[in-house]
């Protein structure tokens, strides 16, 4: 199981996907939760422009206990992909122990043979009634499996960042992803101890 609690508490994260999926917003929430909620340092570098019109876009977030001198991310510890193009572009940069997280319906992790995390975030968002909340579900999932920031701070950051009147729905989406993440971790732990079913 990959739990990224590093001694330095430093995380370099890349979120990537199509323009319009809310990748940059998710990155902003992540950094805001770390800085305002958890009293740590964080930076955000956005990459969009022509890419925003349906191409690959990314948000590069660094979270650290110390001052951050160089904001761009060259080798992420956590790579969350919500599009195939994003995966193809950034997978080579992921560190050797880095955590890969994908939307399982949108990304095929070709050529990646290590253990990774996947979530049907877009499908879940559709089930919740709003496809555009997939980013928040992904964010909840990322936080559950990596522990990069505290869930409480992130919930606050979600409430204050999303459009007025949608906070409740977005928190529900966040919880959906977060619970899914915890369930996945629990499942892996159960499997590791050989108790995957209810009968044994």
């Amino acid at each position, binding site marked *: 199981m990959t739990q990224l609690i590093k001694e330095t508490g430093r995380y370099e994260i890349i979120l990537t996907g199509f323009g319009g999926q809310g990748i940059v917003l998710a990155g902003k929430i992540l950094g805001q939760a770390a800085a305002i909620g958890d009293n740590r340092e964080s930076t955000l570098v956005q990459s969009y422009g022509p890419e925003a019109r349906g191409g690959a876009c990314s948000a590069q977030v660094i979270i650290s206990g110390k001052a951050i001198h160089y904001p761009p991310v060259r080798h992420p510890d956590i790579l969350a992909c919500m599009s195939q193009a994003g995966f193809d572009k950034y997978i080579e940069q992921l560190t050797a122990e880095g955590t890969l997280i994908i939307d399982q319906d949108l990304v095929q992790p070709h050529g990646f043979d290590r253990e990774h995390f996947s979530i049907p975030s877009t499908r879940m968002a559709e089930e919740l009634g709003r496809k555009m909340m997939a980013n928040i579900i992904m964010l909840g999932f990322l936080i559950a499996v990596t522990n990069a920031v505290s869930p409480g701070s992130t919930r606050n950051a979600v409430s204050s960042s999303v459009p007025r009147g949608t906070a409740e729905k977005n928190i529900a989406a966040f919880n959906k992803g977060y619970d*899914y993440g915890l369930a996945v971790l629990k499942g*892996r732990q159960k499997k590791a101890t050989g108790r995957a079913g*209810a009968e044994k």
Partner: protein
Amino acid sequence: MNDFNIILFLCSWGPHPAYQTLQDRAADIPSEIKMVRIPCAGRISKALLFKPFEMGADGVALVGCPAGSCRYGAGTTNANANEEDTRGILHLLGLGSQRLRLANFMPEDADGLLSFLRDFASEIIRMGKTPVSPPAKDKALSDLAEAARKAIAQNNVYSCQDCGKCSSSCPLTLAGKPFSPRALAASIISGSLSEPTVQKDVWACLTCGLCSERCPSSVNFPQFIREIRSILKGTGSGSAEVHGGFLQSLMRTMASPGVQTRHWDWITHEVRTDPAAKTLFFGGCAPYFDIFFGRHLGVKTTRMITDSIKLLNFFDITPALLPDERCCGHDLLWSGDRENFLALARLNQEAFGSSGAEEIIVSCPECYRTLSVDYPAHGIDIPLKITLLHDLIEREVDKGAVAFTPHGGVVTFLDPCRMRYLPKGRELPRKLIARLKPSAFKEMKEGGASSDCCGNCAWIGCDAFSKALQVKRIAQAKASGADLLVTGCPKCQIHMKCAMEDPFLGPDLTMEVEDLTALIVRSIHWE
């Protein structure tokens, strides 16, 4: 005179002459023993063996003829079986199985009989008085008409428009029984409650609530019937209890404050429990059902309990169990015995309160309804959160990362009446079944919203029409093309299995019946 009471059921053929010899000799038969002469030990059913305990007896001895000497052939075998089962029940109830003893004597063995009686009496005295306090006698009701009038007014029965929608949805009427909710309501309104035919109908109602759902005036017929039953109970009208009233006796016995049951003695170590947990699991009466019906139907309703705890364990919930858990009182309430229902409810309220738990998880739909609806309606508030197991499973599974080995068969679902009334009670089991990925889910002809019932409720009023209803249900299940009938209540399972025992129709009705929890527990796994 001492205050111990030991009932001796004594067979007329073998041991009674021996007893007479003792009387002729003016032998010193222990004075605690009260003899009841019976025609055959094999005819003393479990209900009759247990009844004295409900009434406060300290011990019961069943004395018959040695094997091979029974005048009727099967008496000794039957007596053995009945004694063994009743001892099992006494053990679970915490009364002690030693309080019931079976022995066989030939007419010439007066000395043997005497030493048996002395030995038994001294053992009972050593064990001490029974913890059961005899239930209070039903208070005679002075004004039947006035009580009925109140019940009519409280349940909105005057607004009946005589439209007949109730009769056209009533499972009993549809099974061909000359029974009609509106006609019954009209008879009670016109003051005929004292007539035996009307009373019979009051005890026949299944209280399934389909009529109420269809009623344009929203007359709460099940609640009205429940009210009328408790009124009739007060007049001493027979309440049409089935199985000799054994199950009601059992529940009334548990309403004695002194009884400390050993409810969980049968539980295996496959399941994990923790006495200090904040989550309590309430199991229900399945352990008693398995002993009582085990020989006849081979039911294994305790599996529903172990499966439920296994599922909780699967989700890392290690529940506490009340070591002296009692019945929830559902069947007493619905068979008119409100006084003992309230006694049980108060004892449970106290036990839940002092358990230190914050949540109760219930797997039986009847227990769930009783704890969450009927207790508060009777002013008994449970300060704990009450959760139906199926709800919890759906909630946990919905979080994700849990998968099911596809079931592959064609299944149908029999809605338990006490689950169907819940807001999500029809959807929920179907949602769970869909997750199990059967090759197909087939709805019965009278399934879903208009689901018929399993033919009986609260162990009263079972008759040929109940059986016809059950046979119809199974025939519908088979006709749907399903090869597995899934249920969610231990009683549905017992009643369906009972119908399959029919000597004429049985072979055509045989169908696999399983509880939903059993299906889930076998296929659920972490992804």
